[in-house]
């Protein structure tokens, strides 16, 4: 009997999954060849589940600057900024992010996960009220537990439910902070941000938007959903990550809030972890420049996203509610989901098998994320592999096609 025996139920579920011949939580790449191609088990795969929205991971300029910075400044900072000091790269990156968003302040974190932990635990504390969308990412839930604020969930994407819950708090002391995401990572749906901003204005709450999956994806200049919805002035804090559209790793927060820099000596997930290494910051800076200088990347991305989304729907698959670079297909049950995922791998398409409890409403999902770097031929090949797998599992009947599940 080990100390980990308490997790027996998870182990059992995982064992059942592995007994079916797959281990989607432990996929091993023999090689990654490009933003859209890798090798698994000796077989070349189209990568359709990597969040590599702008396809910049192999960009020659990003790679070159990362190499240059690594040669010049070393592989790591070997400590946090409060102990080991700030490098030029940290300041340059913060200045570039702040300028990109047109905000006074920016702060970078070592991962996107830590950005949420660090910001949420610092903005609200005991006696404050944190209003979370029920389908929030794990990093938001975890961040909510670090700061001792009262945490209240509202129904996913429901401004009315949010309003109702804020109204219930009338008269209670403490700040209110609403947290929503630009694009939700499992179904690819966006928050109704205009309506949420209106609730924020009416109730005097603060608003934080996590643009992890929408930076470089939505908005006229790629700033995300707040820009696309025209409500940037209502968003007090934007949190995001470098690990998706910018092709590296790290997180950030931008704001116009007074006293912003106090977070640097309060936020434990900022203070007590090693800061970003020079090479990562260098490539991120170049990627951010490319995001701004090459708007065609966003157009290519959305064209590919719509091609995959429309193609899957035309075949009768049940997808998320709107076409975005995250394209999720609902599976009727776990067994089918696992079989389908396996057939996709065998057909040369890698994407994410997403199972409860990581998914909203206990749905089983084949979750793909599209890149600007995908060719039309790659998207069409993926669609063909989907069609073939659907046929062999018997839920795409010829002629009148049937939906796979319910979203």
């Amino acid at each position, binding site marked *: 009997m080990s100390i980990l025996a308490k997790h027996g139920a998870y182990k059992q579920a995982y064992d059942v999954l592995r007994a079916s011949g797959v281990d989607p939580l432990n996929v091993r790449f023999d090689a990654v060849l490009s933003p859209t191609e890798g090798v698994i088990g000796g077989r070349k795969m189209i990568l359709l589940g990597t969040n590599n929205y702008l396809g910049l991971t192999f960009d020659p300029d990003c790679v070159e600057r990362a190499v240059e910075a690594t040669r010049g400044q070393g592989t790591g900072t070997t400590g946090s900024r409060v102990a080991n000091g700030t490098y030029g790269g940290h300041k340059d990156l913060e200045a570039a992010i702040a300028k990109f968003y047109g905000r006074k302040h920016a702060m970078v974190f070592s991962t996107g996960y830590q950005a949420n932990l660090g910001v949420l635990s610092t903005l609200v504390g005991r006696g404050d009220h944190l209003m979370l969308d029920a389908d929030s990412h794990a990093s938001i839930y975890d961040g909510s537990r670090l700061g001792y604020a*009262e*945490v*209240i969930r509202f129904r996913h994407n429901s401004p009315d439910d949010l309003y109702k*819950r804020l109204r*219930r*708090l009338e008269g*209670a002391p403490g700040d209110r902070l609403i947290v929503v995401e630009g694009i939700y990572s499992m179904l690819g749906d966006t928050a109704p941000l205009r309506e949420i901003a209106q609730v924020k204005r009416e109730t005097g709450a603060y608003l934080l938007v996590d643009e992890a999956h929408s930076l470089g994806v939505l908005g006229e200049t790629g700033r995300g959903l707040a820009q696309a919805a025209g409500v940037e002035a209502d968003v007090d804090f934007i949190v995001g990550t470098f690990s998706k559209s910018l092709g590296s790793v790290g997180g950030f927060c931008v704001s116009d809030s007074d006293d912003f820099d106090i977070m640097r000596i309060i936020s434990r997930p900022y203070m007590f972890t090693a800061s970003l290494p020079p090479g990562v910051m260098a490539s991120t800076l170049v990627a951010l420049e490319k995001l701004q200088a090459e708007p065609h990347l966003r157009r290519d991305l959305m064209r590919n996203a719509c091609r995959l989304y429309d193609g899957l729907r035309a075949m009768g698959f049940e997808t998320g509610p709107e076409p975005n670079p995250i394209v999720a297909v609902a599976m009727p049950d776990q067994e089918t989901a696992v079989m389908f995922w396996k057939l996709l791998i065998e057909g040369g398409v890698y994407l994410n098998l997403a199972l409860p*409890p990581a998914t909203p409403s*206990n749905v089983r999902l084949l979750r793909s994320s599209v890149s600007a770097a995908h060719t039309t031929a790659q998207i069409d090949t993926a669609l063909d592999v989907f069609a073939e797998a659907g046929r062999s599992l018997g839920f795409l009947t010829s002629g009148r096609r049937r939906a796979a599940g319910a979203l």
Partner: protein
Amino acid sequence: MRNEISTIFEDVLGRPVVIEDDTDIVEDLGMDSLGVMNFVMAIEDYYDISIPLDRIAQIRTVADLIHTVEDLRKGSAV
């Protein structure tokens, strides 16, 4: 209140349930985390309250739930 809660359980679970004060909501009623969440939201709507996450975590039995709901309705826990 126990009768009201029993009705809400039945709506969420879609089957008849028998509950006592010491009924364990997860163990005895076989609810998964999604079921618990839907149930909590239904309770919140019915009584026009919000149950903070840390309070939900402390609730095991029907008696705990009744106590929490009464507490929040009095406004003493805000």
